[in-house]
């Protein structure tokens, strides 16, 4: 059995005496019981405690409390009537905002007087008394503030009526002539600055700055002059006062609420229960517990979660409201035996979505349960549950990262995770041309097929894999060497026209790759420019696109052409940043230029761009564009590659052909998983070596 503590505690651990004498008696008994070692006496004390609990209603404190409750009811009824009576005595001409505030002030005055008498009896009354006191102290200030500004406004309005139109228009004329004068002066000044620039006294930057400065000055002068016109000044005054009024009231209300919240933290609450029960009774209905704890607005938000759980997540998981599927059970059945239009793939995706929805629902359940439990535990300690003002503040402070990154997480889950999981699951099924709309689970058959190189789709896997690896290594390394070498040449001190070379050399990077690839493809087609030149050089008929070796060579050359520009750009950036004194020191020590290159340039450049080069390799491993757009993976070689792939196909373009052209989705999924794991592994290696990861600075 849980016990009561003698003292109440607030958030920061201050202790408070109990005001509830009944609970205090219980707490004292509890303490005695725990300290008592004699068994018989202990039993006697426990009996005493029991009788105390059973006579709870007769305890003098509780009797007083009952009385207080009755009076409170009475008071609340009467104060309403008095309030409306008071409202009638207020002049009708009064601003509605002021009227409201005055009524509030009246209400809290009465409230303060009533609760003052009971503040020793219970913390409840004490809190209400102090809350009202804060209102009584601060509302008059707000009213005064409003009235002050309204008086100013009224005066300004009066002045507006009294503005002499003749005087006003005269001033406007004045302004015009002033503007003209000032403009002339400004233009002269600008002219002077421009002349000085022409003489070469100041730099072009100084020129633009000086001109900007002059223009700004002119604007300010005109502004100042403008305010000398009565109507303009009056208008601006009214506008600023209105703004002051709006912001001022809002600020004061905020201060008031913050002060009340502060009091909430300082005055404890006495809770009759001594172990949390609400949290355990209401976990299935988020919002209910909050409502019982008296946090109405918070409860409303958790009720929204309840609606989501019971109207969306759970019905969806059970198969209601699905597009076709059956919720989670659709994952197992995969539409087997269903109607002809039912598609297994849809069942699968909807099952995955249902699982994610359920996960979100579980998260919401847990969040609500924790919230209620914490509030209740705090109440037992003596901490008052936070009100909406405080909750809002907490959400905006501690909840900020959750609230702001929630949409991004949603996109990542449903756009990235759901499709990837679908692919993963798909790789364990037999989705192929014969089983397009309905397919079934077949375990790791697909992985076996590709590992052993069997079956129609699996037989060419290793052939393609080897070419993919060769392609990745050769094409990327060639591009890197070429780009690095060119950057070294251009960066040589004695080479002139660096800018020209640099501009030309990054063109392959700047022109969209798909355009250049397609154009290269046109140029090497029969009758294309390159083919014609080669034919006349070798005096024979060369058909690049029909020859496996030639196509592959062409692809590697094109990729070198494309990729070198990027490496060139990166290397140039690093080379320019290497301090010259390094080389000078090396020269003094007698290093040859080759040694300088080997010991200074190469290590420095490599160190900086190595991670980017790794991404170049993974990029080329999955370089769909260049393969597909150049020759669609061809030339086709049915004797070695069957009908599904061409001899220049990479794994990724093979996956594309399998999944989207030939409808072997399942085995394509297995290959995709294979590629992804590989790419992820290399990416992870790269991360592990990155600075942030190693220093644990995540």
């Amino acid at each position, binding site marked *: 059995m849980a016990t009561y503590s003698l003292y109440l505690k607030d958030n920061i651990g201050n202790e408070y005496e109990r005001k509830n004498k009944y609970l205090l008696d219980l707490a004292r008994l509890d303490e005695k019981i725990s300290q008592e070692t004699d068994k018989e006496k202990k039993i006697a004390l426990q009996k005493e405690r029991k009788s105390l609990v059973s006579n709870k209603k007769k305890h003098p404190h509780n009797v007083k409390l009952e009385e207080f409750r009755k009076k409170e009811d009475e008071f609340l009824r009467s104060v309403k009537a008095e309030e409306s009576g008071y409202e009638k005595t207020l002049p009708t001409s009064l601003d509605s905002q002021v009227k409201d505030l005055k009524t509030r002030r009246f209400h809290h005055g009465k409230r303060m007087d009533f609760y003052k008498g009971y503040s020793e009896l219970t913390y409840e009354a004490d809190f209400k008394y102090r809350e009202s006191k804060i209102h009584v102290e601060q509302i008059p200030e707000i009213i005064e503030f409003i009235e002050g500004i309204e008086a100013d406004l009224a005066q300004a309005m009066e002045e507006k009526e009294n503005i002499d139109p003749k005087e006003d228009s005269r001033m406007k004329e004045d302004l015009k002539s002033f503007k003209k004068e000032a403009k002339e002066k400004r233009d002269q000044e600008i002219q002077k600055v421009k002349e000085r620039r022409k003489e070469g006294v100041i730099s072009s930057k100084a020129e633009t700055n000086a001109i900007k400065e002059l223009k700004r000055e002119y604007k300010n002068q005109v502004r100042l002059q403008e305010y000398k016109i009565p109507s303009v000044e009056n208008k601006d005054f009214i506008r600023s006062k209105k703004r002051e009024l709006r912001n001022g009231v809002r600020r004061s209300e905020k201060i008031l609420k913050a002060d009340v919240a502060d009091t909430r933290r300082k005055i404890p609450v006495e809770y009759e229960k001594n172990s949390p029960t609400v949290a355990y009774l209401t976990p299935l209905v988020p919002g209910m517990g909050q409502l019982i704890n008296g946090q109405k607005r918070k409860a409303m938000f958790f009720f929204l979660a309840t609606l989501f759980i019971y109207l969306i997540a759970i019905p969806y998981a059970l198969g209601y409201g699905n*597009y076709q599927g059956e919720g989670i059970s659709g994952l197992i059945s995969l539409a087997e035996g269903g109607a002809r239009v039912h598609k297994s*793939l849809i069942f699968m*995706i909807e099952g995955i979505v249902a699982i994610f929805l359920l996960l979100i629902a579980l998260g919401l359940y847990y969040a609500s349960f924790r919230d209620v439990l914490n509030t209740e535990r705090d109440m037992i300690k003596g901490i008052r549950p936070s009100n909406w003002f405080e909750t809002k503040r907490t959400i905006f402070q501690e909840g*900020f*990262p*959750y609230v*702001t*990154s929630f949409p*991004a997480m949603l*996109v*990542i889950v449903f756009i*990235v*995770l*759901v*499709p*990837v999981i*679908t*692919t993963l699951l798909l790789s364990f099924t037999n989705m192929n041309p014969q089983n397009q709309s309905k397919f079934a689970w077949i375990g790791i058959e697909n992985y076996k097929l590709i590992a052993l190189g069997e079956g129609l789709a699996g037989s060419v896997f290793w052939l393609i894999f080897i070419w993919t690896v060769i392609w990745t290594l050769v094409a990327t390394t060639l591009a890197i060497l070429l780009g690095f070498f060119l950057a070294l*040449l*251009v960066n040589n001190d004695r*080479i002139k026209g660096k800018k020209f*070379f640099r501009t*030309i050399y990054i063109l*392959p*990077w*700047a*022109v*969209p790759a*798909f*355009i*250049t690839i397609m*154009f*290269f493809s*046109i*140029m090497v087609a029969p*009758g*294309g*420019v390159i083919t*014609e*030149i080669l034919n006349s050089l070798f005096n024979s008929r060369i058909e690049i696109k029909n020859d496996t070796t030639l196509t592959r060579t062409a692809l590697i050359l094109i990729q070198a*052409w494309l990729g070198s520009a990027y490496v060139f*750009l*990166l290397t140039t*950036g690093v080379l320019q940043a290497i301090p010259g004194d390094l080389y000078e020191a090396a020269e003094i020590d007698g290093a040859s230029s080759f040694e300088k290159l080997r010991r200074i340039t190469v290590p420095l450049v490599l160190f*900086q761009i190595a991670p*980017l080069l790794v991404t170049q390799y993974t990029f080329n491993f999955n370089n*769909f*564009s260049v393969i*597909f*757009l150049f020759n*669609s993976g061809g030339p086709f070689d049915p004797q070695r590659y069957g009908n599904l792939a061409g001899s220049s196909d990479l794994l990724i373009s093979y996956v594309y052909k399998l999944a989207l052209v030939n409808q072997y989705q399942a085995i394509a*999924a297995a290959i995709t998983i294979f590629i*992804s794991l590989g*790419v*992820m592994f290399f*990416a*992870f290696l790269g991360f592990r070596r990155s600075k*942030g990861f190693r220093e644990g*600075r*995540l």
Partner: protein
Amino acid sequence: MTLFGGKKKKDKGLYLSDKPPLTVAGIIGIVTSYTILFAWVVAIVWPLFQMVVSAFNGQQQQYIMGNENFEFSLRHFEFLYNETYYLTWVKNTLFIAISTALLTIVMVSFTGYAYSRYRFKGRKASLMAIMLIQTIPTFAGITAFFTMHSIVSSVIPAFSRQMMLILIYAGPAIASNTFILKGYIDSVSTELDDAAKIDGCSNFDIYRIIIMPIARPMLTIIALWSFIGPFMDYLLAKVLLTSPSTYTLAVGLFTLVSDFRTMNQPAFAAGGLLTAIPIVIMFMVLQKQLVSGLTSGSVKG
């Protein structure tokens, strides 16, 4: 050189350079360097020049042939405007690119800020999760994208394939750019935030008034790269977009060289030229920013 303003008169008799005089081997080296450099200039310019020539060559028919004579004409451009959806493709691509960039920027700016500045529960776990997720290649989900779109569009009929494509481009971009921006904001000291907090700024105010202006250079880079992405991508657009009027430039232009029914290679050259020019100008002007975006991406975390 211009330090003293006036022009320097060169004294022919004196050797004024601070570099040592060239040896014979040095001269040979320089000559070979120039030869190689110019050879590479030719290797780059010649194919591009061929493209320009065939775009303007009125003699070229359906196929671009190597041995045609040149005759200046704009008829391929006319064909592009009149007979193809070129303008629609441009519009589609711009729509997709701009939406992707906006979506990415808005979400990344929040996540980057949150992960850099707040120590909240589940931070490290979710960061690791994002790190893993962003290494998964986007094409891993291609089989599901199409079906997913038909499921969503059954609930929301206005959800077009292009919108799906935008989300597909934005999703991984959000994941990977969160790291880049987080790293960038990490490098800014928190003193400014603290000062703002003391002056009574809320979290959102700090985001808006302090972090956004500081992170603007990096956000510009992220926006640029996510804007360029849809221009360069062929695979995903090809998978999702099925009717010619919804194509992006890459998919649309490919129909001019791949399909026998719509084959018109010179028109492709013309379209490629029109597409490339603005992008090349953009790359040239924003070169520095684009490269710094790439290098910062490499030190994620």
